[in-house]
Every structure is written in structure tokens, then in C-alpha cells.
């Protein structure tokens, strides 16, 4: 029996697993997909918000401001790229300028450091490619960018190294509550756990309901994005927001930690919580609204488009805490933006809850909250590369030409704790297939390496688990 089963290996689940792995507890991290970071975490803006959006006094505001402050150190420990690029909310009218004042006051009340309002001149000096129609902007220098799935992968690796068991393809289908524990009926069999942490993202209401808590209702809110080529990655250096509306923070234009330019998202509430299809209308909206703030954005430079789902709770508030209906269920629901920004704080917050329910828990003597930096051949000097290949010749074979990813890095990604089991998993961990050719050349090589390392036939390899197989039977 596990002391704790964390359901959902998104950024909330994985960061929580890492936080809790310091304690002498038996913990399982259950994920219904073939990999971590497969839900809302996989596809979002990757922004570390400063914290002026959420309502004053809300848990969301507290988590956001704390999370934003914790993020640089967290990323440093996990060797995840983080850039403190600052954000700008751009106003396009006097009314919007007035709204910036509201955001400024709220930010100050929430404890956001160093925020200020910039005049048009100050703004255009910082970001010369912004629209000349802009009036001014709210500047938040503490905001940053991070890759959401890299953070999650690193956190999960760290958790597993500290003893957490990661169980993939493990969907909770029913929950039975006995006197001393939960019995989770999963696609990997029955799993017993004294406590369950519900980090199931868009499905957190379903999981809560199975555990007898019907107080949560989550709407999947779809957001569509374009990812633009690195050639235009330096169009802006800050994250550029437009003034927020009811449906969220509007279309943003932001550099990514990998040097691309991200444009999006739309906001559309949908019924099907598994619908991550992009739509022509959604993508057109992104095209249309992005140029309002940054006129030179051209989606002809797109290397891909994608859709993410936010787990929106009606109250637009994080629902974190011990369930009122079941004292052994700890919910972490309604984690939508700024959920990524808040993740380090949410993990700590849940840590406190766990301490309060378990009483005094021993901290492992060998607990290590860091993760070693993965090999990144593309970032090395020629001397470092030569040394590396001498040690392991697999680093001398380039598999992904666009991103200069070696076979050694792909093998590392597969062999890592909670490592990659499919093509998309390799892609997220190494960037193989993420470049201009989008896997045209290296896709089949990655399939071969996965099959060899996992000891299976190449037609058993999937794109992202389930029935997403790439090949059928042999031709001969």
C-alpha cells in the first residue's frame, strides 16, 4: 500500500511528487498517458506570470507571486532553462490604460515586486517591434519564461530518483474507499493508497466525484497556438500581453526558452476534455489578433500549431486542500493559468497539507532536490564535444539534423528515470524532431532507437502511446 497516490503527472503532480519525495513516505505518481506532461502541461504559453492578474487575497494570487519568486531557483536545481525576460501588458486605448492602473494596484496588493506603467515612448524603446498604435504598458520585470514540459520531466525524474514510483498508462477508472485506504481501480490493476492527491487536470472533477466529492466542476478551455521559427524568435524580448478579457489574458506574443516565438492562445470552452484538435477558425483568430500588438508577426513562419486545454474552474480559483467530502482526498484542482507559474508554490503548499495530515514525517537523509543537467550537444563547445564523444561514441552520431541532437542524448532520454517511451517523449526531452523538418528525417531513426533500447519491434513504437502507432506490419 502506498502512503500517497498522486493522480496526474502534469506539472502540479510532478512538482508535488518531487516535493513530497523528501519524506519517508511510499508514493506513487499515476499517469493515464504514456508519459508525464501530457495534458494541460504539454501545451500552454510557458509563461511565469508576475502575479497581478489573480484577485487580491485569492489563493491563486498567493501561489502565483510565491511561485514566480521560487521559479528561478527551482529551474536552476532541476537544470531546466528559465529566462527572466519580464512581461508587458500593452494598452491600445485610454480605457485600456485605465485598466492597466487597475492591474498595477492589484499587483501591488498581491505583492508583485517592481511593477510599473510605461509610457508609449518607454515601451517602444524596450520593444521597437510593437505596434505604433500602442498607448503604453504595464511592465512586470519579475515575469519569466520556462518550458512547461521540461520542468515537469525534470521534476518527475527528481521525484523518481528520490524513490517515487512512476506508473504510466495508469488511468483511474473507479475509486473505492475502505476504512484505511483508497483502492484505485486502474488500467494497471488495483492500487491501494492511504491518501490520494488529485492533480488530474481537466479530469480532476471526475476523479473527485469517484472519490465521493462532487463539489468540483472543471471546464476544458481550449487554447490554440502557433510556434514560429527561430528566425523570427527575437521579434520581441519580453512576453507581450494584450489587455485581459473575460476569457483570459488574450493573445500573447512571447519568445520561448528555445528561441522560438510563441503566438496564442485563443480561449474556447469545450465539452470534450480530450479534444486537442486545432481549428481553422481558432488559428485564424490567432493570426488576426496577434498582429494587433506585434504587426510583424507572420504565421507563414510557423513551424507548427497546437492546442492546449486549461482546467478551468467556475470560480477561477485554485481548489487546493483536503476535500470536504473525503478527508483522505487532497484536491489540487482548477489549476489553470497561472498554474505553471504557481507550481513550485503549490507543491510546497501541498507539502504543508501532507505534513499536517501525517503529523511528523521523517525527512530522508539522502533526499536530493536537484536533477543533473542532461547532455545538450548543441550547446557545447567543440572541445567539450570532442571529449564527450571520446567517452561515449553515441554522442558522435547526429540523429536530428535541424536541432543537432545526438543518438547519445536520445538514449539518455529513454533510459532516464520516468524516461521516454514514445517518439513525442523523445522529442520533448531532446528536441529531436522539433526543428524545421519536424521529424521528416529523424523520425524513423528515433523509432529505430526506441525499438532497440526498449527491446521491441519498430511497429510497436507509438507517437504518444495508446493507438498512436506509426507503422503497421512488415511489407514482406
Amino acid at each position: 500500500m502506498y502512503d500517497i497516490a498522486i493522480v496526474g503527472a502534469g506539472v502540479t503532480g510532478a512538482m508535488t511528487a518531487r516535493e513530497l519525495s523528501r519524506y519517508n513516505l511510499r508514493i506513487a505518481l499515476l499517469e493515464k498517458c504514456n508519459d508525464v506532461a501530457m495534458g494541460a502541461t504539454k501545451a500552454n504559453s510557458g509563461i511565469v506570470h508576475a502575479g497581478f492578474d489573480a484577485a487580491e487575497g485569492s489563493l491563486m494570487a498567493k501561489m502565483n507571486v510565491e511561485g514566480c519568486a521560487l521559479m528561478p531557483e527551482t529551474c536552476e536545481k532541476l537544470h531546466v532553462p528559465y529566462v527572466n525576460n519580464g512581461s508587458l501588458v500593452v494598452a491600445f486605448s485610454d480605457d485600456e490604460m485605465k485598466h492597466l492602473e487597475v492591474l498595477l494596484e492589484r499587483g501591488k496588493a498581491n505583492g508583485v515586486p517592481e511593477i510599473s506603467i510605461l509610457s508609449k515612448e518607454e515601451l517602444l524603446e524596450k520593444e521597437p517591434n510593437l505596434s505604433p498604435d500602442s498607448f503604453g504598458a504595464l511592465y512586470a520585470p519579475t515575469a519569466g519564461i520556462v518550458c512547461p514540459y521540461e520542468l515537469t520531466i525534470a521534476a518527475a525524474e527528481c521525484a523518481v530518483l528520490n524513490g517515487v514510483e512512476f506508473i504510466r498508462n495508469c488511468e483511474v477508472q473507479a475509486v473505492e474507499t475502505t476504512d484505511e485506504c483508497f483502492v484505485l481501480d486502474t488500467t494497471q490493476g488495483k492500487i491501494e493508497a492511504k491518501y490520494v492527491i488529485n492533480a488530474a487536470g481537466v479530469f480532476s472533477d471526475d476523479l473527485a466525484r469517484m472519490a465521493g466529492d462532487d463539489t468540483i466542476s472543471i471546464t476544458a478551455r481550449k487554447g490554440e497556438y502557433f510556434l514560429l521559427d527561430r528566425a523570427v524568435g527575437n521579434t520581441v524580448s519580453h512576453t507581450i500581453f494584450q489587455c485581459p478579457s473575460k476569457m483570459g489574458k488574450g493573445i500573447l506574443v512571447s519568445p520561448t526558452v528555445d528561441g522560438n516565438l510563441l503566438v496564442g492562445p485563443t480561449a474556447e470552452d469545450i465539452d470534450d476534455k480530450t479534444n486537442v484538435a486545432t481549428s481553422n477558425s481558432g488559428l485564424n483568430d490567432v493570426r488576426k489578433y496577434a498582429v494587433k500588438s506585434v504587426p510583424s508577426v507572420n504565421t507563414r513562419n510557423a513551424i507548427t500549431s497546437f492546442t492546449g486545454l486549461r482546467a478551468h474552474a467556475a470560480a477561477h480559483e485554485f481548489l487546493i486542500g483536503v476535500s470536504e467530502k473525503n478527508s483522505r482526498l487532497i484536491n489540487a484542482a482548477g489549476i489553470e493559468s497561472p498554474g505553471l507559474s504557481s507550481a513550485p508554490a503549490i507543491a510546497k503548499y501541498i507539502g504543508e497539507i501532507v505534513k499536517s495530515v501525517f503529523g511528523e514525517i521523517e525527512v530522508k537523509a539522502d533526499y536530493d532536490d536537484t536533477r543533473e543537467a542532461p547532455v545538450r550537444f548543441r550547446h557545447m563547445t567543440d572541445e567539450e564535444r570532442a571529449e564527450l564523444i571520446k567517452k561515449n561514441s553515441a554522442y558522435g552520431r547526429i540523429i536530428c539534423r535541424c536541432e543537432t541532437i545526438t543518438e547519445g542524448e536520445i538514449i539518455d532520454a529513454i533510459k532516464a528515470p520516468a524516461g521516454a517511451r514514445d517518439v513525442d517523449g523523445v522529442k520533448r526531452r531532446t528536441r529531436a524532431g522539433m526543428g524545421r523538418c519536424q521529424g521528416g528525417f529523424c523520425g524513423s531513426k528515433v523509432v529505430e532507437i526506441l525499438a532497440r533500447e526498449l527491446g521491441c519491434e519498430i511497429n510497436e513504437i507509438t507517437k504518444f502511446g495508446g493507438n498512436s502507432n506509426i507503422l503497421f506490419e512488415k511489407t514482406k
Partner: protein
Amino acid sequence: MLNYDLVVVGGGPAGMAAALKARECGVEKIIVLERAETLGGILEQCIHTGFGLHYFGEELSGPEYAAKFIDMLKDTDIEVKVNTMVLSVSDDKVVTAVNTVDGLIQIKATAVILAMGCRERPRGALQIAGTRASGIMTAGTAQKYVNIDGYMPGKKVVILGSGDIGLIMARRMTLEGAEVKVVCELMPFSGGLTRNIVQCLDDFGIPLKLSTTVIETHGKERLEGVTIAKVDDRLQPIPGSEEYIECDTLMLSVGLIPENELTKQAGIALDNITNGAVVNEMRETDHEGIFACGNVLQVHDLVDYVTLESQIAGEGAARYILGKDTEEKVYINTTPENGVRYIVPQKVNIKSKEDIKLYFRVGAIYMNKKLTVEVDGKVISSKKKVKLAPGEMENVVIPADILATLNENSTIKVRVEE
């Protein structure tokens, strides 16, 4: 650091022909660096026939065409390193590469020939709406799975793009037992050869839908279907013309892009129509001693032309290396006009003692027009063409005796006219 007279980046048909020609012209220390595990480049997976009619006068498969050059290379002492990826080519012609055997290699070259080939345009750039299901791949990737790895990448197939690779794959998949439902082409004409439309589609009753595109993909895990729609003359989908087609595979054959990452990195000027380097008649780039040829310079329709172009580059590199290149050079630009999209070479040395062939493509289908070459305002040739199509590369010759009459202000223009 190693020293070579000539480093050839890429061991496909372009690199092999260039290296062989340079050797024939007297260059001694030559090395070919190939990133794949064998020489031959993309020809290795092009197992259909139709290669070599112009150059060898016989109809060969891709591997057979490549094998002829591989055998010729083996008969020389030209060095070859396979599984070797070039990471950079510097201004002073230091080539940095890696492989598993030698680790990191640095080679100081007297001349460099860039012959990296091209890649297929991926889905992302196409921005088709829909899911991220598996089963969406370029035709070339599918070709590798079927012809090299021996696995079926799909059973029910829709192909977007009627370029030759798409057409060839329609037949390959059919022969191996798949059902190819339709080939959609965005343009009102196919970019593929007529022969391929007849023998790859018509023979098997596979419909070719022109002015049609895929607007959406369906299926959450494996692809389950696509929505296709007619497009108007601005290539925008026409509402109401949508049609759902059940399929497990969508193959994309929507164009090829020269692979010029190394070229760009080296700061070499590119032509924004060809996406290849700007070159002179010897296929030398704006960096002295760095040449480019084959599909990295311009996407060819026939490998035979790749061979011919690469031999020019090989000879150019040889002249440069052997110091036979010292005569005075005066460059003027070649200008594509009315209907002609681009010309390779983009500039020519009017002091050249030889005829210069200009290669180019037109932008649309033209019937019964003339191809006119105008030099310094005078028409030097005007050839009647029954048909001109974007899919077929054309060429015209500027005779040496005309070049001899030109000066640095001269103009060379090629156009389509009535």
C-alpha cells in the same frame, strides 16, 4: 587539424559527381563527408525506375543510378566518411564534422562543395487544422519506411500534393497492398510528371483532385480521416465543398526545400526564390572557393541534371584549387522576367570562354509561348515551346561569342512571351 584540397559536404548524387569531376580535373586530396550510413543520398530509397535516361541513356532505379557513382568512387582514392555530420563551414573554409569513430574532426579545405540536398516541407508549415494523431508523415518518410525498413506506414492513404514523390508513393503503397483513396493538389495543375500521373494514379484508378486541399485531420490517436475541400483561385477553401475521407494515413508531398543551414551559418548569400545559394556559372557562391550544387542549390526534377550541375561545380572547384582560375572576372546578373521565376546561375562571368547554360523554372503552365533570351536589349534567341510547366526545369544557352561582346553594364534577361 586535417588538410584537404577539396571537402565535399554530402555523398548523394551531387556530392559524388562533383568529387569525381574534381578528381578528373586533377585535384588530389578529396574527401566526401556523408551524414547517412551509406553513399547515395535519397536515391537509396527511390527504388522506382526513371533515373538516368539522359545521363546514362538507360532507365535505372535510384539505387542503381547511385551504385554507378559509388563504384566509380571506389575506383579512385577519394576518401569517404559516412555517418559523418558536418556541423559548420567557416569563412576560412574550416569544416567541422562529427562521427562515432573519429569524434570531432576539423578539416582545413582549399575549396568546399556544398551538396547537402533538400528536405520535404513538413506539416507544421502547412498549418492544417486538426489533431496531432499519428499517421501524418511526408511522402519521403513513408518511402523510407516501405522501401528501406520494410514496414507499411498505412493501409488507407490520402496524399496531399501531386509532386512526383507523392505520385510515386501512391503506386508504391498500392503495389504493397494499401488503398490509396485520393491525391489532392492545391494548385489547378499537378507539379508531377505526366508519365507519373498516368502510371502511378490512372493505372490504379486513384483519383487526382486538383484545386483541392486537406483542411482538417481527425482522430485522437491514429489518424481516422481527413476533411478535404475545393479551393478558389486565391487558394482559399470554398465553404460547402468539404468532404470527409476515412483514412489512417496522410502523406504530404507539398514541396522540397534546399537544406541550407550550413550555407546560412557560413554567411553565404541565398536566393529567396530558389532558397539556394546565389552562384556564378561555375556554381561558386559569394564566398570564394565555396561551391554549391544539386538540390541544395535548386530543387531539380531529374537526377541527371543534378549530375551535370555537380560536374560543373567539381570543375569550378578544381580550377580554383589548381589556380587555373586567375583570369579576370567581370560578373553581371541574369534577370528572370515575365513568367520566369528564377535563373541559376544568378550571375555570370562575361570573361568566360565557354558557352553558359542558364537553368530556370516558369511560375505557371504556359501553352504555345516563346522562351526569349534578351542580351543588352537584343533578342538572341526566341524558341517556341508547346508547353512550359513549373514542374519541368528549362534551360537556354548564352554562347561564348555573345559573352565576349558584353561589358559590366550588360544585361541578360530570360522571359516567357507570346
